């Protein structure tokens, strides 16, 4: 069914790379997403904004296939394929990358080792030959520059003892190595000081391209002044209550979320907010 098998061809602009339709999902027995519709095309960067508890991270987890989230209704197509039918690892190999809000520590497993296993799993899936240690090292060195990564971090255990900033930087570095089609950045800016934020944002920007789409989830507009989105969506109470261009993020900065949250609940928004 899918014409695009992930060989690096861009989806045609007529066909969205990611199409979410009527998505409802539960976590912990509670309905969190109450009907999401969203389309993202190759080359686009979409921001998902919203207050705490609005369902932003749940959406990221649905896309990545986290089993703690149960999809109750709706459909998600990724390059025309039924994403929800795939296991998390197949989604990853198809080109979906999630930069975790809380990157996980894996003691005793070197960052390099995980990344090589991951890169080769993706390559195998794409029908490309696996990289040997030397080839992989060359790739890593090239991509490391993007994130101004300290090489010592590569040989340390995955995220173990990393500072908050190092963890987030490591996520984007992994993204640079794995070369995904769709990157979902879950609150990548949280816990970063302004310098670290700039480094991470520069890394993300350098990975923007006509064949890649990004979904940037954030609470704050400050990230969006570094990673300028094509579209901004506001999630409140499990629904997208407003979509717009970059200026929407700016007006949120000014007015806060309260006026839009009210819309999510279905109560009339304060008159002045419209």
């Amino acid at each position, binding site marked *: 069914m899918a014409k695009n098998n992930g060989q690096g061809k861009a989806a045609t602009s007529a066909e969205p790379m990611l199409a979410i339709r009527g998505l409802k999902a539960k976590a912990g027995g509670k309905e969190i997403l109450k009907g999401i519709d969203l389309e993202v095309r190759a080359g686009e960067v979409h921001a998902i904004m919203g207050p705490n508890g609005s369902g932003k991270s749940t959406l990221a987890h649905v896309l*990545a*296939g*986290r*089993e*703690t989230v149960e999809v109750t209704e709706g459909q998600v197509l990724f390059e025309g394929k039924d994403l929800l039918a795939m*296991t*998390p*690892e197949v*989604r*990853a*190999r198809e080109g979906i*990358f*999630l930069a*975790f809000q809380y*990157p*996980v*520590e*894996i*003691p*005793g*497993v070197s960052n390099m*080792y*995980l*990344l090589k*296993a*991951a*890169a080769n*799993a*993706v390559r195998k*899936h794409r029908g490309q030959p696996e990289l040997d240690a030397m080839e992989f090292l060359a790739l890593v060195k090239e991509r490391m520059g993007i994130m101004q990564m300290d090489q010592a971090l590569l040989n340390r*255990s995955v995220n173990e003892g990393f500072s908050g900033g190092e963890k987030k930087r490591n996520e984007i570095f*992994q993204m640079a190595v*794995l070369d995904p089609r769709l990157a979902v950045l879950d609150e990548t800016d949280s816990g970063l000081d302004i310098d670290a934020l700039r480094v991470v944002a520069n890394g993300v920007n350098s990975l923007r391209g006509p064949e890649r789409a990004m979904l940037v989830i954030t609470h704050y507009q400050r990230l969006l002044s570094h990673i300028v989105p094509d579209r901004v969506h506001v999630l409140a109470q499990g629904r997208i209550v407003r979509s717009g261009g970059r200026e929407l993020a700016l007006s949120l900065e000014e007015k806060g979320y309260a006026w839009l949250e009210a819309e999510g609940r279905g109560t009339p928004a304060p008159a002045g907010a419209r």
Partner: protein
Amino acid sequence: MSGSTKTLQDLTAQDYKYGFTTDVEADTVPKGLSEEVIRTISAKKGEPAFMLEWRLKAYRHWLTMREPTWANVKYPKIDYQDIIYYSAPKSAADGPKSLDDVDPELRRTYEKLGIPLQEQKLLAGVAVDAVFDSVSVATTFKEKLRSLGIIFCSFSEAAREHPDLVQAYLGSVVPYSDNFFATLNSAVFTDGSFVYVPKGVRCPMELSTYFRINAADTGQFERTLIIADAGAYVSYLEGCTAPKRDKNQLHAAVVELVALEDATIKYSTVQNWYPGDKEGKGGIYNFVTKRGKCQGRRSKISWTQVETGSAITWKYPSCILQGDDSVGEFYSVALTNNYQQADTGTKMIHIGRNTRSTILSKGISAGHGQNTYRGLVKILKGATNARNYSQCDSLLMGDQCGAHTFPYVEVKNSTARLEHEASTSKIGEDQIFYCRQRGLSAEDAVNLIVNGFCKEVFRELPMEFAVEAQKLLGISLEGSVG
């Protein structure tokens, strides 16, 4: 030698003849244990008289002992009269005719481990041609060792060819009266390995039973004795990552190591006996006594073990740190899956001054597995400035398994310094998900995480062994993640 022992020796030497004549042609001795059975075993092996005397002393002592019940393991009562204590090595004709006759499940595992075909045949007990790669390898290997004066042979051969060495060291670390299973072993052991590395010689290769001709049938009651003379070095590998079929349920081996001044012995084990089926039926009971004595100054004994097999593992490789400045090490990975039980750990007995010991234990429990670390650090009065560092980590997979830790400490010298760290963690859903989100399958993710957990121990294994051990853990954990 005391008078009573002398009489005993005479007596036994006398009876020896009868033992010898009654059963000489038979391939097996009758079921059960008696002095006659022991005499028969000794006679069949053509042992010198002191060996028989020693065996009988052990047997008589064993009769006064009770099977220990303190270990944190459960198993039905063993009927020691229902065991055949000696059977001649099976002739090749009894085994499967070709690999096609071998259990496909077993073959699948061999393939996953990447074991060469010839070796698969050997392990599965398939009759192999006389001209066989490893035989010639083993021959050149033996010549090399001989030129250095290193003795590496079966225990039986050692008892015949080097009785002085055997008599001097047998039972010097694990006396015949040591414990129920070691005493049983002393009475009935059939074979095992013997190593002697002369003064100042560094053994140039890893010694492994695999290279010992006629070692294929290791037997139920194995006994190994390794002696490193002053300044010598030897690294010994025991076992094999491939699962070996064995119809004997009870295994009670004894390993004794002796390191003289400035000598180093490194002993690595990968144990993968049949663990029983998924419901916990069958499987080997592995009740082993392993102990090393750092007899000389600055000597060092290092145990590394990867225990993934057996229904029950009961094993405490220990070090007696007698020489001043001697060093004992214990690195262990024990994995229990399905209904496996392991009660394992070490004892570090500090006697000499400035003795140091390190304990690093990693227990992994999956399925209904029960994993116990039991360790003793004992600092005796004269052990001035003794140091110990212990670390016991447990990893749990699922909610049906268990991890237990019993660290005992006895300190009789106030200058001693001891550190103990322990942790218990559950393999996290979030760790598995993180790896899967990067493209690894759930099984690969678990392997990666478990291998990371065990890394500090694997680092101590010889390179090739370490690679095999990693693969083995993965196979042993198959199906343990949903």
